[in-house]
């Protein structure tokens, strides 16, 4: 594996940054690869960042920003409009399928959709939609190992919510496996 | 929700008689609900629709009760709502 560039977009409150963080942490701490995560800040720093960028590679990562992501995880239409043009034409895009209508993509792009918000709501906490998405990402992309992701989630979410989050992860993961097998 | 103490704590004046016409600039609205909550005559409610920013703007439900007190206009952080006085019987 050379270098994989991942971009995650959505609106504030969807946990975009945490998703990026978990992927980066899983790859770098638990999978023994290298992973660099950066994020876009609004004016000064009011937590208005709504995109996260992760680069995963076996070798050292030098250039810190994502130039042409091979993988995108998109959770809002606005983010789709803003970011999808940057996607590698041979890349893949993972979308929250009830919030994003993936129109206008080159035909070479692989699109995987998941109703992550609904799944999260079914689990009783809409807030875990990003973890559902992370599970989905793990299954679909194979960039990080499932085990590493589970560990990254366990060590990153607030104490007491590990169970719920791992459940959300599994839901997303299973949904992803299904999608992959379907293709 | 607690009992509203509109008159007292934030001291806006007694509604007067004029009748107000309400203009809502929906695209500016960030759905804070201030105008809805503090309209003294409950003229407004949260609409179901989304604007392009993804917020629910207010919707006029009891237009006839608006007294053009201007509170909604004054409290709107987005300059997204205002009213003006309608001469009796007038419809804009």
């Amino acid at each position: 594996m050379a270098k994989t560039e991942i971009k995650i977009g959505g609106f504030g409150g969807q946990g975009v940054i945490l998703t990026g963080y978990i992927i980066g942490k899983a790859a770098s701490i638990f999978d023994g690869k290298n992973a660099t995560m950066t994020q876009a800040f609004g004016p000064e720093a009011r937590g208005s960042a709504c995109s996260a960028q992760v680069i995963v590679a076996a070798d050292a990562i030098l250039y810190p920003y994502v130039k042409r992501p091979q993988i995108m995880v998109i959770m809002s239409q606005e983010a789709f409009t803003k970011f999808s043009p940057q996607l590698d034409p041979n890349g893949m895009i993972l979308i929250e399928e009830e919030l994003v209508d993936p129109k206008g993509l080159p035909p070479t792009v692989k699109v995987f959709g998941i109703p992550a918000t609904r799944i999260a709501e079914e689990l009783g906490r809409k807030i875990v939609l990003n973890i559902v998405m992370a599970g989905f990402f793990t299954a679909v992309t194979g960039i990080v190992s499932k085990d590493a992701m589970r560990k990254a989630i366990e060590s990153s979410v607030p104490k007491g919510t590990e169970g719920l989050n791992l459940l959300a992860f599994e839901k997303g993961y299973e949904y992803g496996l299904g999608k992959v097998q379907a293709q | 929700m607690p009992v509203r103490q509109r008159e007292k704590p934030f001291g806006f004046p007694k509604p007067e008689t004029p009748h107000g016409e309400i203009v809502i600039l929906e695209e500016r609205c960030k759905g804070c609900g201030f105008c809805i909550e503090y309209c003294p005559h409950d003229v407004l409610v949260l609409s179901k629709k989304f604007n392009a920013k993804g917020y629910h703007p207010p919707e006029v439900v009891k237009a006839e009760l608006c007294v053009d007190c201007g509170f909604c206009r004054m409290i709107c952080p987005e300059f997204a709502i205002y009213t003006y006085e309608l001469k009796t019987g007038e419809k804009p």
Partner: protein
Amino acid sequence: MKADPKGVLTGSHYIDGDHACCEGALASGCRFVGGYPITPSTEVVERFARRAPMVEGAHFIQMEDELAASIAIQGAVWAGKKAMTVTSGPGFSLMMEHIGLAVMTETPCVFVDVQRGGPSTGLPTLPGQADMMQARWGSHGDYEIIALSPNSPQECFDLTIDAFNLSEQYRVPVMFMMDECVGHMMERVVIPPADRIEITPRRYTALPPGEYLPFKPGPDMIPEMFKAGDGYRLHITGLTHDFKGYPAMNPEVQEQLVRRLVDKIRLSEPKIRRYEEDGVEDADVVVVTYGITSRVAVEAIEAARKRGIKVGMLRLVVVWPFPEPRIFELACRGKAFVMAEMNYGQIFYEVERSVRGRAPVVLAGHGGGTVHNIDDIVKKIEEAHRCLS
């Protein structure tokens, strides 16, 4: 001396440069931070604020402004703590008077500047590298400091320890010149066990009160220190002062004191010097760079190599004092230089000066806001290469 395990968060962490800097400080024994929030440095103090109550003897205070922050730490140092303050451009500008105070009173302490785009309020959330000359020259009067520049979260940890150690070693304020990109980037940071972290203890005097003179230089030009409350009952002043620490306002004492302050760093340049070279020996073009730009430069160098140019890199880890002799040496060997930095020429001038006309020097600079475009550096490498022929 080994690090105090209480402050060392041994393990692998996925954190950003700001957080890593905080951990580096804790590991190196820093137990006092006086801060004032400013993007993109705030996370350093936020982490310290959260960690302090759990680390015995550590205290964080958010002061009312940067003037206060940059002198509160000096009070803490003279009371016995290792201390730092953290800021970004606008706040750094406000700290200039107190950098001078720390220089004059030889107060070991660390100033972290997470550089953003400037001048003035500029680009608060975007990276810059344009405070490098300020770090060296921003206070009035003549002086020398030490400045380091990390290029990854891991180095934010490692070099913060070095910053504290150098500061104690030379009794000089050390400037830790990060940038927004390094500060906000998350990567794996490995924190070793405490007993694998080497710490320079404060150079307290062993002499009893009465015999000890607080500004009498030792053999390496550096006086030993005391702290308030130890019974020395001594005086410290920002005025020109004699060995006793007493004000002595005349040109002779000035010459003695300030020349030493300058020379204790200048003459130690060979010891403080720290840079990384890659492929310099047989290179035609050497890219000099530091901080985040050094990572981008590597990609440019690889690209240029693919185009058949022999390019090497000299990455400054310690930026001040500047390794002038090494640059000159390389210049004498006929190499051309590209200075890659996120500004319109700062360390570039030092390289220009150091080559003494023996080599072309080309600036690959821009105003900040993002890292370099790799092609831009490549073009400059080509330009420098053309100069050679």
